[in-house]
């Protein structure tokens, strides 16, 4: 069997990739996908612990998280569409009014 910490380390890697993806890319869509990657990494960790502790609760939580991710994706993309209508671009650097 694969030891637990391998899964955790993999989850950590995936999470880091997601974080970097959010910060480094200028495309709003790609940033959003980074967020999804992060969520998935968390799901993976949850599944691993659930298996290790032999409790189903982890898997139920993963189920709910994914539902939430769906809702969040829908709203987020709607926001991106609204932004696009105003600025004609999905360049994250064009959203610079959050000051003063």
């Amino acid at each position, binding site marked *: *069997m*694969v*030891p*637990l*910490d*391998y*899964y*955790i*380390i*993999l989850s*950590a890697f*995936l*999470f*880091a*990739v*997601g*974080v*970097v993806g959010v*910060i*480094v*890319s*200028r*495309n709003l*869509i*790609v940033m959003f*996908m*980074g967020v*999804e*990657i992060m969520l*998935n990494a968390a*799901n*993976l960790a949850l*599944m*691993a612990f659930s*298996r290790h502790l*032999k409790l*189903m*609760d982890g*898997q*139920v939580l*993963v*189920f*709910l998280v*994914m*539902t*939430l991710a*769906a*809702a*969040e*994706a*829908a*709203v987020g*993309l*709607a926001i*991106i*569409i*609204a932004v696009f209508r105003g600025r004609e*671009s999905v*360049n994250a*650097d064009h959203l610079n009014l959050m000051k003063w």
Partner: protein
Amino acid sequence: MLLFVVAAIIALAAAVMVITVRNPVASVLYLIISLLAQSVLYIQLSGLFVAAFLVLIYGGAILVLFLFVIMMLNIRYADFGPDMLKAVKPWGWIFGLVLLAEMVWVSMGVSTRMSAVDPAFGSVPAVAMLLYTKYVYPFELTSILLLAAIVGAVVMAKRGM
């Protein structure tokens, strides 16, 4: 074990490709590949229902939604011009790596082997048992949340509002 390694590498590589390719459609497709690999990992962890759920909902609904949006907004290689925040890239990588190091450092010592589990673990009835008894409130609330999400999405994207 071999299965784990292969699936892990694919998942990770695909994730990296997601953030590095220029074409946003390609990014979505790479993400789907990564999700598939992760699904394999879920199966290895006796989460049959969740694995299926992942592919169906995440890959089939959410990422398709992404594709819809990309196509609709007609985002191409979209050359964004010179980067106005040049300092972010290096610092982002550095601290991302630091974060990684921290997390790995924490989980290094947890070398535990997992013992066997009965076959009913992770099956649909098992999930359902828990979902409709212990976690019925979160379940119902989630449905309301989805309702809110739908209304919000419609409001946000409607023209002229």
